[in-house]
């Protein structure tokens, strides 16, 4: 038995997972329209490489990765690009972003696929393949996987496969592990190969015994994994947020990722189990990331997991599970960290945002399941938030600094080590929306740092300009002086002058004087 470690704090919210694990994963039918955002991953938006009116095939590249941290975007089915414009996406701001609208032709016709054997390719080639296959982390952050595999010279000892799935309601990883464990293990072996890691640990919360058994079986059955004897499934205690990468690493290895550093700095890398599955599909089958498993649950008649194409409007998706009549909104993600899709308890139609690569779950909300928050009272410093904070912070102090906009002190008290897990808000007896304050403070601080950067650049450019003008002025003056000298000399040499010459000379001098004046005023008072 492996020795497990634990992290400070954590909570045990009602898990509400069994509703959606009764039925196997089903493929959702083709919708009438797909909306595919070009920015589904952390980093730079992909550049559109198709035009409106183009006919595309399933798996055809429509967005080219643009920048180091970026990923490709593909057509999820064959059809026609009807529009490339700003569409609403699932984002707390409610602002639109660049999307391609794809009208399926119903044929679901694939591009030619190029499966590869990962053993016959260099790691760099594999990274490029994953980048062009649009493989990103499917746990929620959607960080491009190829970037996480570019580790430089660091030695990776442990590769962690994150199957903890600690948030309530979400079961997509659980079902994927139960049904497609073999492919997950093969994907994990590819990742292990690329990282040259010594061991592969699958961290799965002990409330998913079926998933643990399936993985164990798949490891025993898999030839390559068995050869390496390095894959091990570990049941970890069920506690939220045990699936957060840093906390999971701590539980499995006892190591803490240093503040502001990456797991690779301590020789660990962490991928979601669904990402491993996708890596396997992308290389062994040549399929880019076109679909994912999404849990539809909450206030629906039949909670279930679906295999859904990227770009399917979530209202069409929820309709498959039949939302109950008192549904008043949707949450994309779990109840602890998810994004609300429209004002809950406010009238109006549900926003028709599409499923993206980061969508692991859609919860239909009702006032009964998610009652509106109670009015907040002042903090009574009861430190229940301290007791549950997995980052060992003092949430009540951070709250105090954030609400009084003392951003400097908030930073000094490690605001940026907060993982926004929401455990503190969950337990606060004063019902203070603590995480909201942290989000506000963080984005305010980031904006200020950016402003500061711009101001510094402006100062530099301004200083340079002053310097340049100064120099030009000086050079001009020097040139003029030199010319005058030459003229004087010429005058002396050409003695005596005719009166006509003299007038010409005088005129020239006057003109020069004028030019000098104009030049001076032009540089000194550019605005005229």
């Amino acid at each position, binding site marked *: 038995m492996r020795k497990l470690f634990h992290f400070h704090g954590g909570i045990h919210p009602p898990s509400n997972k069994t509703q959606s694990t009764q039925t196997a994963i089903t493929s959702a039918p083709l919708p009438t329209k797909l909306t595919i955002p070009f920015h589904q991953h952390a980093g730079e938006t992909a550049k559109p490489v198709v035009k409106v009116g183009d006919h595309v095939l399933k798996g055809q590249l429509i967005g080219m990765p643009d920048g180091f941290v970026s990923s490709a975007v593909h057509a999820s089915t064959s059809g026609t690009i009807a529009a490339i414009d700003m569409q609403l996406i699932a984002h707390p701001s409610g602002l639109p972003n660049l999307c391609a609208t794809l009208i399926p032709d119903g044929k679901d016709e694939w591009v030619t696929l190029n499966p590869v054997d990962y053993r016959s390719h260099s790691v760099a080639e594999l990274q490029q393949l994953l980048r062009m296959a649009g493989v990103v982390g499917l746990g929620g952050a959607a960080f491009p996987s190829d970037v996480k595999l570019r580790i430089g010279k660091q030695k990776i000892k442990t590769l962690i496969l994150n199957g903890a799935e600690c948030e309530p309601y979400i079961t997509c990883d659980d079902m994927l592990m139960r049904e497609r464990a073999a492919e997950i293990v093969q994907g994990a072996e590819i990742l292990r190969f690329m990282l040259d890691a010594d061991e592969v640990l699958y961290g799965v919360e002990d409330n998913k015994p079926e998933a643990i058994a399936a993985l164990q079986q798949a490891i025993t059955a898999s030839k390559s994994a068995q050869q390496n004897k390095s894959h091990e499934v570990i049941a970890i205690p069920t506690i939220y947020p045990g699936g957060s990468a840093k906390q999971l690493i701590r539980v499995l290895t006892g190591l803490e990722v240093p503040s502001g550093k990456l797991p690779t700095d301590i020789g660990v890398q962490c991928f979601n189990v669904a990402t491993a599955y996708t890596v396997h599909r992308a290389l062994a089958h040549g399929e880019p990331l076109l679909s994912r498993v999404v849990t539809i649950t909450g206030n629906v008649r039949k909670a279930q997991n679906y295999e859904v194409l990227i770009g399917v409007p979530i209202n069409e998706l929820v309709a498959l599970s039949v939302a109950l009549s008192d549904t008043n909104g949707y949450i994309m*993600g779990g109840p602890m960290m998810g994004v609300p899709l429209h004002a809950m308890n406010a009238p109006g139609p549900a926003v028709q945002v599409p499923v993206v690569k980061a969508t692991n779950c859609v919860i239909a909300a009702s006032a009964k399941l998610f009652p509106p928050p109670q009015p907040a009272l002042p903090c*009574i410093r009861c430190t229940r938030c301290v007791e549950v904070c997995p980052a060992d912070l003092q949430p009540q102090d951070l709250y105090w600094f954030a609400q009084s906009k003392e951003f400097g002190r908030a930073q000094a008290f490690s605001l940026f080590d907060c993982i926004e897990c929401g455990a503190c808000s969950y337990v606060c007896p004063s019902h203070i929306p603590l995480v909201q304050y942290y989000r506000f403070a963080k984005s305010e601080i980031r904006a200020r740092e950016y402003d500061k950067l711009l101001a510094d650049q402006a100062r530099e450019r301004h200083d340079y300009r002053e310097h340049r003008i100064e120099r030009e002025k000086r050079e001009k003056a020097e040139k003029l002086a030199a010319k005058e000298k030459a003229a004087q000399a010429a005058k002396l040499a050409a003695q005596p002058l005719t009166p006509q010459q003299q007038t010409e000379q005088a005129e020239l001098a006057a003109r020069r004087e004028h030019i000098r004046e104009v030049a001076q005023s032009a540089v000194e008072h550019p605005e005229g």
Partner: protein
Amino acid sequence: MFFSPFISKPDSVAQIMLKVILALIPGIALYVWYFGPAILVSITLASITALATEAAMLKLRNRPIGPFLKDNSALLTAWLLALSIPPLAPWWLVVVGTAFAIAIAKQLYGGLGNNPFNPAMVGYAVLIISFPVHMTHWLAPQGLVLAELSFAQQLQYIFSGVLPPSLTLDAISMATPLDTLKTHLHLEESVQQILNMPIYGHLGGQGSEMVALGFLIGGLYLLASRIISWHIPVAYLGSLFIIAAIFHLVDPTHYVAPLFHLFSGAAILGAFFILTDPVSSPTTNKGRLIFAAGAAFLTYMIRVFGGFPDGVAFATLLMNISVPLIVLYTQPKVFGKKGKQS
């Protein structure tokens, strides 16, 4: 529009405060058993005053009244203060103390969550400084005084200050066991002689030791239900015991045994109910240990060398002042960081 998390624990400030109030009940029941029901009168008076003052102040400060009145924090302050005032004290004493605690010590500092001092202890301190005589006439446990008042007579005395003819105040009341100990030590009597007096029981004062036991039971309930953490009560009682033990070992004729200190005065009440007030105590566990140990030291010093009958209130207030400093220097290690923060 509201944002994640969308779920929360069904817990509220009002519930927490209510549980603390409920935890006082065993102690109060024993109080009534040993000293008669007069204490219930002061608790009622204090509660009414507290709610009325709170409502008035909230109105003056232009804050919503409903949610704050319902948070039970004013009630808790009232009960704690009432328990620190002699039950036979005139009605206006309770009213003035409670009103001061709520209006000045709590609301003027910003109300719930913002008071740096424990309001009940501020109220107590003001009363004992302003009305020292009234604050030292305690009820004697049953069977120990010359004459006993019926409940009606007690009521009459509380509200009109009139005693039944032929009785003097001294005949019906007495000083607290701690006070008596101090007075007699000044008279050059030894601890052993003094403790033979009838007002002393097994651990502390006759009767009052049982009340303290009652509060201990309530305190254990608070610990068990995780309303308070163990740090403050354990550090406070532990330190008080150790300090008292050191003095007692050095000179047993002048310094009473440590258990006596734990079970007399407001030590138990303070350890579980007063020092643990979340608003005015440190938020770090290490800080709590320091805070409670400091309070224990001060309590002992005031009790033994100071001029006041008990030291819990002043020790609490003095330590309240140092809370921000204690918290600043006891910040725990943050996940992924080496040293302490800031």
